[in-house]
């Protein structure tokens, strides 16, 4: 059971407040949706949860451990922030293997399994990443997120560049991750997808949680 608690979190970057006094709680087995226009602070909030940046004010606790104080990063997190980021010189399969070999928590079988799960064949997994189409890159990015059964799953616009079947695949994966008991945090421009998947949706406006907080 994992719980993320953001308490009065603010973040200033070069004098500009990008996140202002945000308090959110996310728990295992729940999908939390973030909604907002471009630049509203959705990705920044995800970076804060991932521990990539630290709040200027307020605290973020993962299972009671404060980010930046007790822990640097969440113990188990998979994330797709903005664009999928892999190394061009390697194949999709090699890229996943490289990521998996850092912690060595999963074996080659799992890597092949996760490739299939996101709709990439073993053949396409052997192609150089730079030769991937945008959709394939996105699918590989999602594979990288769920590869090691993370407790926290962060998906920033996961349906970008995906066709209809790809979108359905994302929905399926989000539901699977939820069932597995992961904390899923997702942003999506398509409000219908967010309404369909999320248990609760937070609306961000200029880095502030707007009054409307939907409980779906």
């Amino acid at each position: 059971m994992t719980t993320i608690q953001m308490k009065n979190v603010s973040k200033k970057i070069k004098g500009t407040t990008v996140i202002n006094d945000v308090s959110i709680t996310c728990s295992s087995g729940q999908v939390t949706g973030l909604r907002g226009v471009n630049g509203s602070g959705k990705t920044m909030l995800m970076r804060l949860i991932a521990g990539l940046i630290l709040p200027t004010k307020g605290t973020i606790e993962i299972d009671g451990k404060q980010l930046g104080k007790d822990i640097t990063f969440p113990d188990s997190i998979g994330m797709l922030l903005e664009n999928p980021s892999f190394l061009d010189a390697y194949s999709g399969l090699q890229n996943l293997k490289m990521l998996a070999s850092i912690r060595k928590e999963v074996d080659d079988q799992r890597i092949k399994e996760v490739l299939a799960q996101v709709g990439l064949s073993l053949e396409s997994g052997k192609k150089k990443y730079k030769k991937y189409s945008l959709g394939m890159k996105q699918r590989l990015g999602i594979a990288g997120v769920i590869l090691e059964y993370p407790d926290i799953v962060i998906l920033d616009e996961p349906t970008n560049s995906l066709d209809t079947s790809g979108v359905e695949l994302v929905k399926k994966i989000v539901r699977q991750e939820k069932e597995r008991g992961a904390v899923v945090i997702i942003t999506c421009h398509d409000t219908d997808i967010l309404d369909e998947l999320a248990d609760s949706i937070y609306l961000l406006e200029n880095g502030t949680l707007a009054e409307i907080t939907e409980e779906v």
Partner: protein
Amino acid sequence: MHKTFVHLIKIELKKAIKNKFFVTTLMVGSIFALFSAWYMIDSYAAFEHQNKVYTNNGNPMIQQFSLFNHWIGGEAFSLGYTLFFTLIPLMAVLPYSWSYFIENKIGYVKSIVTRSSKFQYYLSKYIATFVSGGLVVLIPLIANILIVACFVPAITPTKLYPLYYAVDHGSLWSGLFYTHPIIYVLLYLILDFVFAGLFATMSLAVSFFIKNRIAIILIPFFFILILHYSRTFLAYIYYNEISPLHYLHSTAIENYANGGMVLTQGLLFFILTFGITMKLGVKREVF
């Protein structure tokens, strides 16, 4: 945590050495080293011919012609030597020094640090960059000495001919050169490996401030060139070598290598590059 670091080091070293930039640079460095070997073996063959024809193998100056002043680190005559030693700072950075810049630009750093830690990531990146820069210079040097050794005998240099060896009293490890020249050469190989590694890490450190890949590659080279040519301001004032392009060569090019100067520069390069990489790397937020 320890295990993750070991895994990360392995991955980084593999990425640093098994890439096309490392292989290409290694090939170019090896071509320079082969040029030098060819020139010096040819020069030795000419001497051998003269020795046989004119002196009936009785040339008393035979000790002038030794492996230790015919390998690329001991000779200063060939085009291969000039290109190799002038371009060491550039060759060292080409294999992998740009990798942090690329990984940061595409957002790959995020995937790594959240699976390990910033400290582990930057330390493994520093080590891999250092090793790739060192190896790309060390391997051609070793290849050169092995090839030259097949043709030129490893005669222990004699103190009677310091003029021909350019290793004089007061020069770095000069005692070893005339007593245990193999150890002398080995020490120079280590010195060249270390400095080439440090040149590579200069690019890594620069990439925390500069956002242009070409600039990141060229800045250490220009910095070393500035240091190299600034020695002209010290002419007739300071008689020790301050240019790494000269003191990385095992025999003197212009001034003698001074241990204190070499150590000071080496430490300074290390403190600056390691300090910047680890301090800024760990402190900076990842976007």
